């Protein structure tokens, strides 16, 4: 079994937002919810970098720790998933998440949050793999079909990598040593308490 992770090579990201669009389309994510987004730092200044960010599927995930109803679970591939049947929409995972991953549809009165939605690493949810229920609640389950997350698969500059930690870390290391620079594996220290030595 693999230790699935995301890695965004900020020196390659061209902020085309195709990962964002692909994600929305693949999972038929409702309006107002973004499982993935591209954040640009130092916009228009020297040293500008763009990073594609979604749920990082943390080690010791903070969302899972604070959930009052224990709706999160980690798969054998270390993907952090949750059950929308159990979620009560309290918003605590959003306070704890270092990456702003949890999203809430706005339902009912005032700021009432509906059931939380987030990146599933294209691995669906607790319902049967590939079932209609699973698709409606969590989107496509590409992992069950032997495919990797679509955002990374269709990234035009191969900036966004998704897959086994050792494999993507190796790819990144080779890139950095070849081109001679790298702005680092964004979020890895926070999510996995480890970085890639380059």
């Amino acid at each position: 079994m693999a230790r699935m992770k995301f890695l965004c090579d900020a020196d390659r990201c061209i902020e085309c937002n195709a990962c964002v669009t692909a994600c929305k389309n693949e999972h038929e994510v409702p309006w107002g919810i973004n499982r993935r987004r591209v954040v640009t730092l130092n916009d228009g200044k020297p040293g500008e970098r763009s990073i594609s960010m979604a749920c990082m599927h943390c080690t010791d995930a903070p969302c899972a720790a604070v959930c009052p109803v224990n709706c999160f679970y980690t798969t054998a591939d270390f993907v952090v998933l949750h059950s929308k049947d159990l979620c009560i929409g309290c918003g605590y995972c959003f306070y704890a998440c270092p990456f702003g991953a949890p999203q809430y549809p706005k339902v009912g009165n005032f700021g009432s949050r509906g059931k939380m939605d987030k990146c599933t690493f294209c691995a669906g949810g607790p319902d049967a793999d590939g079932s209609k229920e699973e698709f409606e609640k969590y989107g496509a389950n590409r992992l069950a079909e032997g495919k990797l997350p679509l955002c990374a698969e269709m990234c035009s500059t191969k900036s966004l990598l998704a897959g086994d930690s050792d494999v993507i870390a190796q790819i990144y290391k080779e890139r950095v040593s070849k081109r001679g620079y790298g702005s680092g594996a964004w979020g890895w220290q926070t999510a996995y308490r480890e970085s890639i030595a380059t």
Partner: protein
Amino acid sequence: MAKLVAHMRLIAGALALAFIVTISAPVSAQQPSMVNPTADAVKEQQLLQQLRSIQGRVTIPDVKSSTLEQPVGRNWQHFHSVTLRWIGAIAILGTLALLVIFYLMRGMVMLKSGRSGRKIVRFNTFERFVHWMTATCFIILAVTGLNITFGRPLFVSTFGSEAFTTWSEWAKYAHNYLSFPFTIGVVLIFLLWIGGNIPNKVDVEWFKRGGGIVGDDHPPAYRFNGGQKAIYWIVVLGGAAVAITGYVLMFPFYGTTIDTMQYAQMIHAVVAMLFVAAMLGHIYIGTIGMEGAFEAMGEGTVDVNWAKEHHRLWLEDEMGGSAKSARTQPAE
């Protein structure tokens, strides 16, 4: 003439072009021939050392998604999963334990002179309505709130995930909606009883003499004694604190950021835990802790002997003010 104008235009155009080329040439010449992309690149470690969170720009309308990273979420996680549970357990179980020990040692504070059979109005219907509305809301808010902090370790394995979710979802709705009558209740309590709750010298004396609950002394008090004034201010200030922070959480991102909401949750939870502990003390004294106390808020009247022992100065004001307006009633 037209030809001359056309010539002039051509010359002016050529001059302008030449001018642009000459001023732009040095600019491009200033660009270094070799750009080192690493030299200026933003570094994550550096940003995290300087800032609590990394902010950028996004092209989607959801402004809050421009926060790339906020590792402080992990600190909040620690507060919620560890610190808060200790604070809550110590405050609430500690208070309960103290009350049990106190009750076993002291027992119910009895009326020394027995009942006179004459009653005096202590709280009118409206005052009692406000008290019980606030109290009912408070108890439901406390139970549903404690469920968020302690429900998972205590009940998930016992009742199963599905049943616990059903209950917690209803608890969330109750917590959100009952906050409104609770807030109204706190505001009314503040307005109704502010007159009798300004601390004064009598309270200092009252506290020095142990308030009559420790020992057999009965220090004089007006309508509200030092302890009741303390409860009043706990309700007013604590109620205001939980209401304000609660509404910040209930209306996410209405002019607030993730930072504000984390702090709001921490204040809300800690104040609420201490509030529950204080109210346990209040409930104790109002029920099994003291003979003749519950009827003040229950029926609205107290025995004159009770008033004499616990609120002598108030009774003197009521009786002595004018015989006509005295609120005493004959026994039924």
